[in-house]
């Protein structure tokens, strides 16, 4: 029996159990639901959950343990049959336990709560698992490569033959430089768009403009990358970089930064718009009633009141910029250099993680393992930014609630 049919059978048993439990409870109460401890439905749910949950859990465990088990149809059939036996047994036990005094509602609610806890534990465990695997592989890497050279090295020249130099600084520089340019584009544009939408636009205009800006957020980053590669890059090279003698590469920090900035505009504008809207109208009225103009009110009262929230939005956008990969690969190139010239090709941490892990991997060489150390560094940076942003946003919320 295939797992699919096993699951169907278990669910059918649960449905049957629901009917049986409910019917039994009602007949024991002689048709008067008031004699029961709980409403009749709960007796049905109790039986259904008893039949389904343990059996399904068994299937999940079996699926997880699959790599360890002797492979073959036999073990799969055995697991299926065992699951169905458990389902039938659970059903029988639960039906027998159904009496008018049985506290079915409490039993059901406890089981549901257990399921909810299980789900949140899975989410947490996944995060912890990811972090742990990063940490372990990074430790492995630092045993092969001195950490001082990694964190303070200014040269990135991986050679799979040996003698690599794996300094993170050029990558970190590229990451921060590109993110900085992206924010330089996204923050003013996004913020002014938000001010227009929340303070000046009529409701009708706003209902058109806001979704239009948010469409930008739905475009896959690879499409932005293409845009950078075929349009923005050549444009910048032909019209600015070459005439000014700043370089002749289509891939550049400027290309990636500009395009990434465009990607971040809806982020900044949409969050800031919500935050500006949350500033109470009474605050604006108070300012207007003192004889200040609309723009003075925005500059001196609304924006300062919304500032912590706006800073939070900007930090979230920054952590997005730091983690972005596709636009950088296609817009900034793959050269690990430290330079102040924005028209030169550079690269970022994320890009190098990808390139160290593509191709033939030998998971005992520092050239491959460095990807994990890079990932861990990136994780720590964005986590720090996110926590800081959430802290600021939360502090701001407290002001008005």
């Amino acid at each position, binding site marked *: 029996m295939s797992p699919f049919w096993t699951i169907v059978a278990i669910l059918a048993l649960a449905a049957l159990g629901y009917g049986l439990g409910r019917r039994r409870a009602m007949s024991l109460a002689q048709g008067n639901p008031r004699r029961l401890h709980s409403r009749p439905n709960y007796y049905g749910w109790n039986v259904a959950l008893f039949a389904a949950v343990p059996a399904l859990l068994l299937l999940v465990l079996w699926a997880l343990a699959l790599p360890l088990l002797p492979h073959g149809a036999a073990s799969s059939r055995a697991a299926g049959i065992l699951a169905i036996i458990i389902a039938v047994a659970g059903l029988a036990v639960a039906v027998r336990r159904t009496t008018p005094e049985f506290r079915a509602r409490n039993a059901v609610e406890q089981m549901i709560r257990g399921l909810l806890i299980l789900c949140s534990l899975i989410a947490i465990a996944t995060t912890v698992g990811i972090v742990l695997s990063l940490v372990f592989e990074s430790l492995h890497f630092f045993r092969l490569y001195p950490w001082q050279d990694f964190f303070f090295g200014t040269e990135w020249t991986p050679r799979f033959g040996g003698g690599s130099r794996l300094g993170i600084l050029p990558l970190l520089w590229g990451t921060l430089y590109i993110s900085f340019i992206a924010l330089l584009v996204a923050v003013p544009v996004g913020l002014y768009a938000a001010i227009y939408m929340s303070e000046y636009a009529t409701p009708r205009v706003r209902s058109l403009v806001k979704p239009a800006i948010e469409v930008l957020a739905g475009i896959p980053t690879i499409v932005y990358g293409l845009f950078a590669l075929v349009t923005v890059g050549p444009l910048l090279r032909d019209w600015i970089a070459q005439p000014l003698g700043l370089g002749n590469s289509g891939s550049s920090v400027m290309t990636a930064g500009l395009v990434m900035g465009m990607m971040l505009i809806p982020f900044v504008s949409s969050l800031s718009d919500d935050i500006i809207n949350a500033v109470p109208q*009474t605050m*604006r*009225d*108070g*300012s*207007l009633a*003192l*004889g*200040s103009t609309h723009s003075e009110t925005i500059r001196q009262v609304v924006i*300062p009141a919304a500032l912590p929230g706006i800073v939070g939005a900007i930090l979230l956008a920054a952590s997005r910029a730091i983690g972005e990969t596709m636009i950088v690969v296609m817009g900034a190139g793959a050269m690990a250099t430290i330079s102040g010239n924005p028209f030169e090709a550079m690269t970022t941490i994320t890009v190098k993680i990808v390139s160290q892990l593509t191709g033939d991997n030998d998971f005992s060489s520092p050239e491959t393992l460095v990807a994990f150390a890079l990932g861990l560094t990136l994780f720590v940076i964005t986590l720090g930014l996110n926590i800081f942003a959430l802290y600021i946003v939360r502090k701001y919320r407290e002001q008005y609630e």
Partner: protein
Amino acid sequence: MDDVRLAERGVDADAKVKFECRGVQVHYGEKQALKDVDADILDRTVTAFIGPSGCGKSTFLRCLNRMNDTVASARVDGRILLEGEDIYDARVDPVQLRARVGMVFQKPNPFPKSIYDNVAYGPKIHGMARNKAELDEIVERALRGAALWNEVKDRLGETGTGLSGGQQQRLCIARAVATAPEVLLMDEPCSALDPIATAQVEELIDDLRESYSVVIVTHSMQQAARVSQRTAFFHLGNLVEYGDTEQIFTNPQDPRTESYISGKIG
């Protein structure tokens, strides 16, 4: 109403007319909120607006400094003259008008700035101080005027939103007074205050009468009787009766006024 202490001082016989309102009507969309209101508001006088909830007191008050302009659906008809000048005329900038006609709201709404900056906000915008010392003086005078100086003089740099509700309201009054308006509109300024703070604000209102025209909306008949010299009673968008406070409370002409102040309607 035996427990009501009527304002001892009556209306100045020679008080000038500050606002002259003729046929004022306000619509919110299709809905009419104010019907044909004629009223003269006197200078150096406290005028109280009373009436049941939803009768249009705030609406009329907000006509006087054109705060209704900020409500998209509101339409104001009729004529309102401030010292003979139509405030709805195209030549009048509502921004300048609001500097002359200040307003204190029902809910305290201090800006999320320091106490000092809250009070200095208006004077700075209108360029009322030439230097820091002058500004300091304006701020101190306004805070003293609002009976708040002693409580905050040692923490002017702290944020205004950190004060208690009553202190916040007095801060908002100080903020309005600091811009030196000619008229001060107050929409239920004491509804968030305890009796002590209320008494302080009422005392302040009485002091303000020396130099301003004050209009106060209130739901407390006692308060209207205590602080005002003139009282207007609104009902369902109509200005039913308007006269000296003493007369309104002791000898109302309209049966609706009579039943409102004796607690039968509203």
